[in-house]
């Protein structure tokens, strides 16, 4: 009997599988399909201070082994998330949930986190300083160590819950940003957000996305994610949540060997709605195949020797 439990900043989760923000809404679409309480937790739709419609459509383009999105943080705003989404979520998910928060100024992040802090179901914050789809917004924060530090400090001031900072891969040295977050008090690092990408339609000879550029995700980005998780694991002591192209139980183990304590599944949920369920059900088989009894023992295992 294998053990899939891991400890995520003092909260034990039954397995390390976490649907990534923006691919799982507030859970109900998936709760219609399977009991989402089998998940370790999930990171809910990126929430901002004010309601946002997001970018014009098309917001989606396909790539080899992946996709681009330029949704642009569509969400009803923190007030409605608290009054409408979280009560509905509570009916289908009984575990602590991860609150994904975005903003356009340091004060926005602090405001939104402070509002959400009193919600008992929120177990962790995941502060997105890396959305590539908002002009002059999130990406600027995630690409500067100084701003990453300011946001981390501001959020830590308004909550005692564990705070993960979600980092952008679109930087020269991700370890510098991770170190700045750790020094500012972050409890963990989530990585990687999407890579900035583009597709062009040969018929119209214009970018497919209305926003021109979008976030690249899917299996194609997994090697980049693994490399960055590996580097950041060496650079900081706080736990990492790894993500980027994860679609199978084997991918989960690979992410953990690189240094992830827990693993998020993003784009896979969109093409295979049962992706997380399938991964969780398959995980014991794959653990046995690779002689892993206790999943938490392999975290960072690729660094040994």
């Amino acid at each position, binding site marked *: 009997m294998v053990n899939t439990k891991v400890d995520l900043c003092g909260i034990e989760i039954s397995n390390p599988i976490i649907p990534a923000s923006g691919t799982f809404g507030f859970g109900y679409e998936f709760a219609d399909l399977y009991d989402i309480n089998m998940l370790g937790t999930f990171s809910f739709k990126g929430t901002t201070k004010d309601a946002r419609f997001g970018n014009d*459509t*098309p917001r*989606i383009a*396909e790539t080899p082994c992946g996709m681009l*999105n330029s949704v642009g943080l569509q969400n009803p705003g923190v007030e409605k998330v608290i009054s409408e989404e979280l009560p509905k979520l509570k009916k289908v998910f009984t575990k602590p949930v991860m609150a994904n928060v975005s903003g356009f100024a340091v004060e926005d992040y602090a405001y939104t986190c402070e509002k959400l802090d009193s919600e008992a179901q929120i177990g962790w914050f995941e502060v997105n300083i890396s959305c590539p789809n908002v002009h002059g917004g999130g990406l600027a924060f995630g690409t500067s160590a100084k701003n990453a530090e300011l946001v981390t400090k501001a959020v830590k001031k308004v909550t005692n819950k564990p705070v993960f900072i979600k980092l952008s891969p679109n930087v020269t040295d991700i370890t510098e940003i991770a170190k700045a977050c750790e020094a500012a008090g972050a409890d963990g690092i989530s990585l990687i957000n999407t890579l900035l990408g583009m597709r062009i339609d040969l018929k119209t000879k214009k970018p497919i996305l209305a926003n021109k550029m979008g976030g690249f995700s899917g299996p194609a980005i997994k090697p980049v994610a693994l490399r960055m998780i590996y580097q950041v694991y060496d650079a900081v002591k706080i736990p990492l949540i790894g993500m980027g192209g994860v679609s199978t139980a084997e991918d989960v183990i690979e992410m953990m060997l690189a240094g992830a304590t827990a693993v998020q599944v993003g784009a896979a949920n969109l*093409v295979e*709605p049962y992706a997380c369920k399938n991964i969780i059900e398959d995980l014991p088989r794959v653990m046995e195949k690779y002689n892993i009894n206790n999943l938490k023992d392999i975290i960072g295992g690729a660094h040994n020797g």
Partner: protein
Amino acid sequence: MTQGIYEIKSNICLAPSIFKMIIEGDTGALTMPGQFVNIKIDGLYLRRPISVCDYSDTEITLIYKVVGEGTEIMSQMRDGDTLDVLVGLGNGFDISKCQNTALLIGGGVGIPPLYKLCKDLIGEGKNVKVVLGFNTKSEIFYEDEFKHLGAEVFVTTVDGSYGIKGFVTNAMDIDYDYFYTCGPLPMFKAIENTAKTSGQYSFEERMGCGFGACMGCSCKTKYGNKRICKDGPVLEREEIIW
């Protein structure tokens, strides 16, 4: 929504670039005309949303146009091949809105979802008039199928090679108390300027998931933001912001 493996019973060319595929499997998740399915295609990452033309207890009829890589691969699939399909997606046409006489207006590959709608309306005892718009005679498909259901059918061709010359709006000066339409956006805009009653439009958009999770296909309406894949693809005339 359900996910299942479906077997291709037939896959034939109806007109240039237009194919009709019949797949066999569980159809229990289909509850109204105008819904769609989302098909996984080996080698491509995102599923392909295809509108449902007709369904029975065991079969789904899909009519699709070859417009890109995914539909090109579909067009080469053979009888007996299997497909991983999400079935019963979207909010389709509401047949209860029509009192007596419905006008169905389809343009090109927008025509297929109107077939099951026509069948259901006639099954409810409604009169159905159908306007089918094409560019030219060689592109015409499903004229006889609609007639066999008992609908009064008008065909328009842009070049006048068959039926009424011009656009679907050239055939809309007839009596009806409600309309339903599916087709390209320029056709919708022309209908919006021509139609005399309430009605429903079925929209198309690039989708990520097709089941409401990713917000990839959102649009603004007078009643708030809606997802084409989940709250649509059918929207009511009164709520649409053009």
